[in-house]
């Protein structure tokens, strides 16, 4: 097949595997029947919320086939991605040359709107990360979902999710990116609400869906505006084309007083708002913590490999547009950049403070995700394009690891809880007082001492946690965070830029808190002694479940350390000799996605996108080492050295005093949103239904209906009026010319035939007349 041999066309197939897997599972292998949840023989699930319900159970063979199909799909995607990466490596100068292929999707008069795929440096780095992370998540899911009755459904949806993400990654235009973006939105809705019997789950699903939808509408406006100005949505035509960028940067659509806002800025801000929703930035971050209601592999998918990464990835893709008109490397920020810097830095700090006070093992990670995404957004805002991309990749690896490790912990805790029930351990004093009837396997206060029963999980979680904290030198998180801080410091040092200074301080603070709450989490979960019976017996058991749930952790742990070394600055003391003797590999690759310096030099409105990486400076390095170690040390001091006893209050509660409940309740933002947005809109929609719908729309519909019925009747009446009058006398009708129009649809065959004859005569006459005109010439 030519298709497979053409390196340009091959990327089309990358999303095909998972998408096909989705179709196959949905259409063919997802056969289920309803059984009562109490039937333990048929239904091997363990979710108490199903009690008393009929649950659909998928036949065992169908589960196995579904898993197989899903795995095949993602493996195919992985293999084709690698082949594509190899093909990309064969290009002389990736960036200036790319792999691209497109088809005309819809003719728009003179030109055609093209849909296609593109492999440039930005795609390459995502193709390294996404398929591997997704594969790990799939492997992990086999174990995690082993006892769920709706495995087939799960694998179908998560395949679609992966397919949509890969579509987004290889897309060559903003519209196809948006398509993948929206499919992911739908998948996240269905997967967050996967256990829809739980009220909290379906509410979380709706919340995630509506919150991101608000942002998506704004983003779509931005896309439409971009298209109306440029006539294309292709990345290469816009982002790699200085002329278009210059046109966008110098077009001035809106002027407030003396302040001119360029079209690029308006479009940029619209597009960024889309990401604010998708990547859960303040003020649209509220859906992400609730998204924990989905199965843990889904959390890993949303938080690491796919959804939130997609938001940042789209910003990286569109970065040249945001920077057009400014010069971030010399301290001049455009409106979109400033917007990103402020929102990102603020979110990074805000979310970090919330994470400190959470007790749910997954909630801590959720807030840390929001915070880390803030890092990336702020980095982009100050022009640290490469640092943002770098942090996106490293974060994806260690956050996927952390989520899946946390999922293992939860699974182990549930296992322990079952064990306790089955072996008749009575309640004893060591149980947490809050436990009551509902044992919460996600509450860190119920854990403790898990390092002994779940050693693999502990060590991998530790590696992921240290990477998240930015533990110096050996972890990937250190290198990417350090690069962000170095970029910020450069702006402060050389140009005295206030924005850069703000970002530097806020991110350093956030990094400190990150280290602290990560250590707190590790200590509460794994340190000290078990605080409940369940924790004492927590483990993953043996067999397939245990293997499939630990193997991905080990692989990802490798990446959580190793991924950092591709981006060691080439003037970093000592280490540069090992990791970057000639150049910083990551920097060298990623920067090529941006327009060339020679090309942009001709346009005064455009910055030099290929500005040099920040030179080595001891201040940002020292800062990042210091905040990481300080945070970890403090956490160790408070939580590991003196482990929490069962029932003991969290030391932070004493330390923070009245602030603690505020943080724990997320600054009451959800409640505020409920009062300010949700309640009024519910009231408004009720009003609209009662007034608009019944009063106006119904009336309008009635009028239209009347009109058309009347018209239809008119035609009928005309028929009667024209044709009636000739009783039964068909022979007479032949002579009576008016008779041939007798009541058209009379049911009488001969009248139909009469009409045919008459029409034949008429057609003959018309034809003779029209060809007569020809003959007359």
């Amino acid at each position, binding site marked *: 097949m030519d298709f497979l041999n053409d390196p340009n066309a091959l990327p089309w197939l990358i999303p095909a595997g998972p998408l096909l897997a989705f179709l196959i599972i949905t259409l063919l292998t997802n056969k289920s029947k309803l059984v009562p949840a109490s039937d333990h023989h048929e239904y091997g699930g363990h979710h108490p919320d199903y009690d008393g319900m009929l649950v659909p159970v998928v036949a065992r063979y169908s589960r196995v086939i579904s898993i197989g199909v899903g795995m095949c799909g993602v493996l195919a995607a992985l293999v084709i991605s690698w082949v594509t990466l190899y093909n990309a490596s064969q290009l002389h100068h990736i960036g200036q040359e790319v792999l691209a292929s497109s088809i005309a999707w819809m003719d728009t008069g003179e030109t055609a709107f093209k849909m296609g795929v593109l492999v440039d440096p930005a795609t390459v780095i995502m193709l390294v990360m996404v398929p591997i992370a997704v594969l790990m998540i799939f492997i992990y899911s086999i174990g995690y979902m082993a006892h769920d009755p709706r495995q087939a459904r799960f694998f179908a949806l998560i395949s679609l999710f992966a397919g949509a993400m890969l579509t987004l990654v290889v897309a060559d235009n903003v519209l196809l990116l948006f398509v993948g973006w929206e499919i992911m939105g739908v998948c996240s809705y269905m997967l967050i609400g996967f256990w829809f019997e739980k009220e909290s789950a379906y509410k979380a699903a709706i919340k995630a869906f509506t919150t991101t939808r608000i942002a998506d509408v704004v983003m779509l406006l931005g896309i439409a505006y971009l298209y109306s100005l440029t006539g294309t949505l292709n990345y290469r035509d816009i982002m790699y084309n200085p002329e278009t960028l210059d046109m966008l940067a110098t077009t001035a659509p809106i002027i407030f007083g003396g302040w001119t806002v360029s079209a690029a800025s308006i479009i940029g801000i619209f597009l960024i708002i889309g990401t604010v929703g998708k990547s859960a930035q303040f003020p649209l971050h509220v859906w992400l913590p609730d998204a924990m209601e989905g199965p843990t592999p889904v959390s890993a998918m949303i938080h690491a490999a796919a959804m939130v990464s997609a938001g940042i990835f789209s910003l990286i893709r569109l970065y040249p547009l945001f920077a057009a008109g400014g010069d971030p490397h010399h301290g001049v920020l455009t409106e979109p950049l400033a917007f990103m810097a402020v929102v990102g830095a603020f979110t990074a700090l805000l979310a970090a403070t919330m994470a400190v006070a959470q007790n749910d093992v997954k909630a801590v990670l959720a807030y840390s995700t929001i915070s880390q995404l803030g890092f990336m957004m702020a980095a982009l805002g100050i022009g640290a394009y490469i640092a943002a991309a770098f942090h996106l990749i490293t974060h994806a690896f260690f956050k996927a690891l952390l989520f899946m490790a946390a999922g293992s912990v939860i699974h182990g805790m549930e296992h322990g809880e079952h064990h306790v029930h089955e072996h008749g351990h009575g309640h004893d004093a060591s149980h947490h007082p809050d436990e009551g009837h509902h044992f919460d396997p996600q509450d860190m206060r119920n854990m403790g001492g898990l390092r002994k029963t779940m050693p693999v999980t502990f060590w991998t979680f530790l590696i992921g946690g240290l990477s998240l904290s930015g533990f110096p030198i050996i972890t990937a998180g250190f290198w990417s965070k350090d690069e962000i801080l170095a970029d910020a410091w450069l702006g402060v040092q050389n140009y005295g830029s206030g924005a850069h200074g703000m970002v530097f301080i806020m991110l350093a603070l956030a990094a400190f808190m990150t280290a602290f709450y990560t250590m707190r989490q590790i200590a509460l979960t794994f340190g000290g002694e078990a605080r409940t019976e369940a924790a004492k017996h927590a483990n993953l058991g043996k067999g397939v479940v245990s293997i499939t749930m630990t193997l991905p952790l080990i692989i990802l742990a490798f990446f959580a350390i190793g991924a950092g070394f591709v981006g060691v600055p080439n003037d970093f003391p000592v280490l540069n000799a090992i990791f970057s003797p000639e150049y910083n590999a990551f920097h060298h690759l990623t920067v090529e996605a941006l327009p060339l310096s020679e090309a942009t030099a001709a346009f005064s409105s455009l910055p030099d996108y290929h500005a040099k990486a920040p030179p080595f400076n001891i201040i940002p390095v020292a800062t990042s080492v210091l905040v990481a170690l300080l945070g970890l040390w403090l956490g160790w001091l408070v939580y590991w050295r003196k482990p929490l006893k069962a029932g003991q209050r969290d030391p932070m509660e004493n330390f923070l005093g009245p602030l603690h409940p505020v943080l724990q309740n997320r600054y009451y933002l959800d409640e505020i949103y409920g009062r300010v947005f949700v309640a009024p809109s519910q009231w408004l929609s009720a009003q609209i239904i009662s007034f608009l719908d019944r009063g106006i729309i119904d009336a309008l519909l009635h009028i239209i209906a009347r009109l058309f019925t009347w018209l239809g009747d008119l035609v009928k009446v005309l028929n009667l009026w024209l044709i009636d009058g000739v009783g039964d006398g*068909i022979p007479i009708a032949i002579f009576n010319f008016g008779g041939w129009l007798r009541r058209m*649809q*009379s*049911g*009488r*065959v*001969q009248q139909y035939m*009469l009409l045919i004859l008459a029409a034949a005569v008429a057609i003959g006459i018309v034809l003779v007349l029209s060809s007569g005109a020809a003959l007359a010439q």
Partner: protein
Amino acid sequence: MNAIGTEPYIILSMVLFLMGALGVLIRRNAILLFMSVELMLNSANLALVAFAREWGQVDGHVFVFFVMTVAAAEVAIGLALIVNIFRERQSINIDDLQQMRG
């Protein structure tokens, strides 16, 4: 040989065609109706044969054979339908068939 030109045949066939069409329109009896349709088809056959003579070809004759074969098949179907209708209604008046209209 060709004392008579083609045109008289064509005029005759047109007249026959119209007569057949009028018969179809006027007759109520289904069988007579079919006979009228046959008349129309055969008027076309006459025209075909006349044209074939004019052009000195067999194409027209071939066409005629096909028309005759198809007409036979049609009649077979038509008569079967009429028998069926007669058994149900004891009538083959075409005007009885107007249950559906409007």
